[in-house]
C-alpha cells in the first residue's frame, strides 16, 4: 500500500504555520503561552490522526454506532458536572476535552454507517437522521454552546443531499423547522439573544455584545491593504479585541496582514477544500464518499461562519477557525478528519 505524498498535507501545514504565527501574535500579551499549548495539541492531533489513518475508513464506519453513543455519553456527563457558567469541557487530568467536538466527528460517521442503505423517500424516513442529529444538538445547546450545536447541522444537510432526498418531501420538515425558530429563540440564553440582536443592529449595545463586533470590524478594517505588520496590530496587541486567541483570531490576522494576507489565506483554504473535495469524489465506496463529504461540509461551514461573523455578515455564534483558533479538541477533531482524507480507500 505505497502512497504518494498528497498535496493536502502541504496545504494543511501551510495553514497551520500561518495560524500558529498568528496565534503567537494574538496571545503575545497574554499571561499564558497559548502557542506552546497549541503545538503540544498539534502533536497530540498528529498522533490521533495516525491512529485514525491506521484504523482506516472501513473500520471507522463500523465503529459508527459506538462512536455516536460514546459522544452522547460525554455530552450527558458534561451536563452533570456542577459549574457556575457554561459546561463545555470535561477535565481529564492535565487536559480538557470538549464533547461537542467529539460529536462533530462522530455524527457524520454514525449517519454514514447506520443509514448507508436506507432511502430517504418518504416524509417519515427523514425522522431518524433528524432525531439523532437534534438529540446531539440539543445536549450541546444545553451547555450552552450555540455554535457547537449548529455545527452538527451542515453534516445532516449534506447527508440529505447526498441521499438525493426528495426535496418536496423534505418541505414538511423545513416548514416545521422554520416554525420552531421563534420557540428556539425564546429558549436562548440572554447573551445569545443579545448577540443575534446586535448582529441586526450593532449600535443597540455598543458596550456589550455590540462591542465585540465593533472591535472586530475595527481590527479588520484598520488592516487596510497590507496590514500593520506581524505583532503590530493595535486592536489585538492592546487587547481591545475580546477572544482574540479563540473565536476572534481572524481579525488579528486581518489587522496585521491586511487584505493581501486575507487573499492568501482564503486562497490556501480554498485549495485545501478543493483538494479534499477531489479526494472525496475519488472514493469508490459510497459510504466513504458520503462521510468525507459530510466532514468537508462541516469544515467548510465552520470556516465560513467564523469568518462571516468576524466581519459582520453573520451573527456571532462562537465557533473556532480551524488551525487558527486556540483550542485542542477542535484541532484534534479537524486533524482526525483530514487523516481520513489522506488515508482514502
Amino acid at each position, binding site marked *: 500500500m505505497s502512497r504518494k505524498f498528497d498535496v493536502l498535507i502541504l496545504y494543511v501545514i501551510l495553514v497551520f504555520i500561518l495560524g500558529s504565527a498568528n496565534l503567537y501574535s494574538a496571545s503575545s500579551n497574554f499571561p499564558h503561552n497559548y502557542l506552546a499549548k497549541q503545538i503540544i495539541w498539534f502533536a497530540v492531533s498528529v498522533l490521533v490522526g495516525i491512529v485514525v489513518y491506521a484504523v482506516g475508513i472501513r473500520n471507522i464506519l463500523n465503529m459508527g454506532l459506538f462512536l455516536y453513543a460514546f459522544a452522547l455519553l460525554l455530552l450527558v456527563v458534561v451536563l452533570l458536572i456542577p459549574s457556575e457558567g457554561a459546561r463545555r469541557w470535561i477535565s481529564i487530568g492535565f487536559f480538557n476535552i470538549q464533547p461537542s467536538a467529539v460529536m462533530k466527528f462522530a455524527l457524520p460517521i454514525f449517519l454514514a454507517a447506520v443509514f448507508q442503505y436506507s432511502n430517504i423517500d418518504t416524509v417519515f424516513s427523514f425522522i431518524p437522521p433528524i432525531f439523532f442529529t437534534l438529540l446531539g444538538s440539543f445536549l450541546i445547546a444545553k451547555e450552552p454552546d450555540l455554535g457547537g450545536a449548529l455545527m452538527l447541522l451542515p453534516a445532516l444537510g449534506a447527508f440529505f443531499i447526498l441521499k438525493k432526498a426528495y426535496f418536496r418531501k423534505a418541505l414538511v420538515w423545513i416548514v416545521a423547522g422554520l416554525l420552531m425558530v421563534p420557540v428556539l429563540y425564546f429558549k436562548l440564553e440572554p447573551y445569545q439573544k443579545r448577540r443575534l440582536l446586535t448582529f441586526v443592529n450593532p449600535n443597540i449595545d455598543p458596550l456589550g455584545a455590540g462591542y465585540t463586533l465593533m472591535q472586530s470590524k475595527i481590527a479588520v*478594517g484598520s*488592516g*487596510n491593504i497590507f496590514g500593520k505588520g506581524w505583532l503590530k496590530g*493595535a486592536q489585538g496587541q492592546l487587547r481591545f479585541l475580546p477572544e482574540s486567541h479563540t473565536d476572534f483570531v481572524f481579525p488579528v490576522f*486581518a489587522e496585521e496582514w491586511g487584505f493581501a494576507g486575507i487573499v492568501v489565506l482564503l486562497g490556501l483554504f480554498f485549495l485545501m477544500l478543493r483538494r479534499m473535495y477531489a479526494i472525496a469524489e475519488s472514493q469508490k465506496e459510497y459510504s466513504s464518499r458520503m462521510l468525507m463529504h459530510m466532514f468537508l461540509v462541516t469544515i467548510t461551514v465552520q470556516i465560513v461562519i467564523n469568518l462571516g461573523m468576524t466581519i459582520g455578515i453573520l451573527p456571532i455564534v462562537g465557533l473556532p477557525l480551524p488551525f487558527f483558533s486556540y483550542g485542542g479538541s477542535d484541532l484534534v477533531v479537524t486533524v482526525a478528519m483530514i487523516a481520513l482524507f489522506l488515508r482514502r480507500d
Partner: protein
Amino acid sequence: MFGKIYKTFLISSLSIIILQTAYLQIARGRYYRDMSLNNYLRVLPLKGYRGNILDRYGRELAVNQLKFAVNILPDRLKNKKDIFSIITEEFNINEDELERIYRLRFRAPFAPLTLISDVDFNKALYFKEKYRNISGLFVSENIERFYPNGRVASHILGYLGEISGDELVELKPYGYRYSSYIGKSGIEKQYEPYLKGSDGGMLVKVDNQGRIVEVLNREEPERGLDVYLTVDLDLQKAADDMLANYKGCILVMDVRTGDMITMSSSPGFDPNAFINSGNSRVAKLLTSDKNPLFNRAIQGEYALGSTFKIVLAEAALEDKAVGQDDKFFCPGYFSYGKSRYRCWKQEGHGWQNLKEAIEHSCNVYFYNTGLKLGADAIAHYAGMFGFGKKTQIDLPYEKSGLLPSPAWKVKNIKESWYPGDTINFSIGQGYFLATPIQALCLMAAIANGGHLLRPRVCSVISGEVAYGIEDSVLAVSEKNLRFIRKAMFDAVNSPSGTGQAARMLPYLAGKTATAQNPHGDSHAWFSGFAPYDNPEIAFLVFIEHGGGGGFISARIAKEFLKYYFKKKESDEPKI
C-alpha cells in the same frame, strides 16, 4: 447534484467574504484606521501649577494645595445606585444631594464627574484601596487653589472660576481647556497670563483597560509665576477686622511709590468658596444683598462731600480766585437767587479765611469760592487731580466716577448748567461722583508735593519689577500745597477742627466729609496723610451710611493708623 451545490456554496461564500473584507479594509479603510487610533491613543493633560500670590514680605495669600476627589465615569458604571450607596456610606452626604451634584456636573457619559471633592489624604487612600475594583469609580488627585487667609484681602486677590464658553473660544489658543479655572476678578484676573503657567501633556498608547502601555510623547508643564503684592498682610488683616461690621473701605498708600499697603473693602468674601464647592455657596455670594463681590475701593462711586473742598481750595489758590487771607462771612446759610444753601453749622461760622474754612469745613466759604472760580475751572482742577478718570490701578473693573461740567450736563441731561449746580459741585455734591481710590490719590498728591501716582497692588512678579512708579507731576505750587497740608493738620489737631477724633502721635493731617446721598444716612469719609511733617502714607476711611460729621471714619482711621505706626516701630513683619 451535491457537487454543484457544494461548489456554488463554497465559491459564493468565499466571494462574499472577500467582498466584505475589501469593503472594510479598502473602501472604509481610513475610517477604521481612525477608529483604531481613537481606541489606543490618548492625550493626557499635565497640569501646570498656578503661581502663588504673596504679600510684600513673601507671606502666602494664594497657594496651591493637593486635594483628593472621588469621581465616576458614568458610562463605566454598572449600577449607579450601588455606587451612590457606597458613597453615602463613606461620606457625609445623602443620596438626593448626590443625585443633584450628579445632574449638575454631568457633561457626557465618558467625561469624568467629580462627586466628592476635598477628601483628606487618609480617607482618600483608604477609599482608593477599598473600592479599587469597582468599575467606573476612581479617586483623583488635584492641585487646587487655596487661600489660607480666607476672607482677608479677598477683593485684591479676586477669585477663580471655570472658564466660560466665550472665554474658551477666545483663549483656546493659549492652552485653556474646557473646565480650566481662570481668574475672574482681582489679581487672579489681572495677572492671569503670568499666574497661569502652561499645561503640558502626554501622548500615550493605552490598552483596553485604559492602562498606559507606552508614552509616545511628553511635554512638561510649566509652573506659573509668583506675584508679589505691595500689601502688608498684617495691616490688611487688621483693616478687614475693623470693617467687619460695616460696609466701606480702608485704604493706605505709600505716597512716594503708589504702593497700596492696605486695601480693604467690606463686606468681603471667601475666595475658597469658588473652588469646587458646588454652586450653592457661589450663588449665595452672587445674590447676597450685601453685594460682597463688589470692591467698594475701586468700583464704588459716591458723592465726595467735603473732601472735595481740598480740590476747591487748591484750585482757588492756583487760579488766584481767592487769596489765603480773603474772608467770607458765614451766617449758617448762603442765598443765591431765591434759593438758600445751608452750612452744616446752623448758627454759622462768622468771618472765615481759607485756612479756617478748611479746618471748620465751612460750606458757605466754598459756595462763594466755587462761584468765583466757575464750574469749568472746578472741573478742570478736579480733572487734574484725577477725578473722572480711572486711576489705572492694576485691578480689573475699576470705575471712573463722574466729573460733571456745564458741557457735560447739556450733553447728558439736556439741561443747561445753573449756578446752583456750581454751588453743589463746590462741596462735592450734585452730579459729582468719585471712587475712594481717586480720593486717596488726591490725598497722596497733596502730601507728596503734587505727584499724581498710579496706584499699584503688585510690584514684583517672579523677581522682576512688574511695573515701576508712575506718576504725573501736577502744575501746582508747593507753597499752596504746604498751605493746604497745614490746614488739614489743623483740621485734626486744632481744638476747633472737625477731625479731632483722629488726633494722635505722630501727627496726621486729614479731612472729614459727610456725603449726602439719596439712599439713606450720609456716607462718612475721613482721608489724609501721615506723618504731617514728612508724609509717608495717604489713608482713607470710608463708611457707607456712616452718619454725619465723618466721626466714625476718623475714629477707625485713628485706631488703624495707631496700629500701623506701632507695627512700623517694631519694624519686623509678624509671620
